[in-house]
């Protein structure tokens, strides 16, 4: 088989990879903000939930989380009489988001805490509520700080999507494996797959750079 014939199935797989990456990065970012802000909350219950979530998902294997959501959760659900069967896409996106969200939460927390004390004092002197201080003063300054580590996490997430091929999602890694089984042309197929992941990573990096520039457009040297 000519290598160009691999391109169509691999591109189909790449689309699944792209979708998984987008959904889980966006959903993971929301989780990261919720848990990162939650970890700084005054309410001890919210803090405990955030810390519990972060530690559990940082401290366990992504692959096992994925298998747990896809294989174990339905069985556990059956035992208590609830249908908890997840379609592969949902299980994949959920596992990836929960994972990136836990890592991202630490990024969010760190960036919020890096906003200078002077800013909080100015906000207090102007009588901002704690909530408005967070949304109007702290977060707009913290978000640009989060962008480089978020970029790393997004790339990490792109590469981690390959794991979902193990729960029968036909992403790029799955298609590559399928083609290899069929043709035994390992070198060509995996080289193409590597190049495709690398290309996607480059695009993602460029997008994160643009986003970083946009959220930090007020900064010195930004324009």
């Amino acid at each position, binding site marked *: 088989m000519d290598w160009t014939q691999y391109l169509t199935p691999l591109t189909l797989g790449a689309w699944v990879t792209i979708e998984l990456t987008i959904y889980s990065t966006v959903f993971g970012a929301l989780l990261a903000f919720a848990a990162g802000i939650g970890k700084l909350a005054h309410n001890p219950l919210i803090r405990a939930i955030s810390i519990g979530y972060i530690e559990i998902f940082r401290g366990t294997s992504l692959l096992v989380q994925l298998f747990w959501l896809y294989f174990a959760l339905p069985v556990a659900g059956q035992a208590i009489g609830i249908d908890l069967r997840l379609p592969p896409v949902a299980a994949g996106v959920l596992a990836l988001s929960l994972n990136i969200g836990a890592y991202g939460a630490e990024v969010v927390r760190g960036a919020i805490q890096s906003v200078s004390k002077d800013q909080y004092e100015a906000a207090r002197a102007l009588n901002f509520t704690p909530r408005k201080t967070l949304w109007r003063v702290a977060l707009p*300054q913290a978000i640009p700080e989060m962008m480089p580590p978020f970029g790393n996490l997004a790339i990490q997430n792109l590469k981690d999507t390959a794991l979902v091929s193990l729960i029968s999602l036909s992403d790029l890694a799955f298609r590559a494996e399928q083609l290899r089984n069929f043709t035994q042309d390992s070198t060509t197929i995996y080289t193409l797959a590597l190049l495709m992941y690398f290309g996607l990573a480059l695009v993602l990096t460029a997008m994160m750079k643009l986003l970083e520039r946009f959220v930090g457009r007020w900064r010195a040297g930004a324009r």
Partner: protein
Amino acid sequence: MSDEPIIKFDKVVKRFGDLTVLNELDFEVKKGEKVSIIGPSGSGKSTVLRILMTLEDINGGVVTVGGEPLWHEKAPDGSLVPASETHLRKMRTQLGMVFQQFNLFPHMTVLRNITEAPVQVLGLTKQEAKQRGEELLELVGLADQAQKYPHQLSGGQQQRVGIARALAMRPNILLFDEPTSALDPELVGEVLNVIGKLAEEHDLTMLLVTHEMRFAREVSDRVCFFDQGRIREEGAPEDLFTDPNEERTREFLQAVLDN
């Protein structure tokens, strides 16, 4: 200027760990009065302002602002209990502060810096806040800089924005915490001019912690010399600067005026 004190410190104690910064401080400011606080660093000058702005709490005594305890509330039985955040929020509306390091919001334009709190905290419409903001920028001589970001301004300009931002909340009392100490010498004048103009034209009560002795002498009704957490000496500027009673004041003035 009326005789009723708008600010009153009654045996106020403030400690940072083992260090006693304010040692049973008694201190009063009358409504409309312009008071300068001078003294060596570490003498508790800035702490007085930070306590008033509710950035630092107190360890003893009572602070009264506008006749009401600042760090306390009256319980139903008449006793004083530590203030709730609600009480502090209400009390804070009377005060404004200008910081040594300006503390402008770097992600907001100059105009937004001034309008944000009036809109978010006082509930002004964007239009009202903008109008007030533009008037204040006019007052501090920065009408043409409204759309710039703080980092595009000089230190002196940033501090003038800081003054406008504090004024936008319409405080009765304005606190200046070494407002020119972070500035290059050639930029000090423009900030002092604005403060001087405010002192002359407004019935604001002003409390100024400063190392600018000449300026303190020009604008203040009264100068307080702080030393070791207490007022060592206070009086009209011409008396205190030309003929201090205390040896410690004399030493301090000699040291700073020789520089």
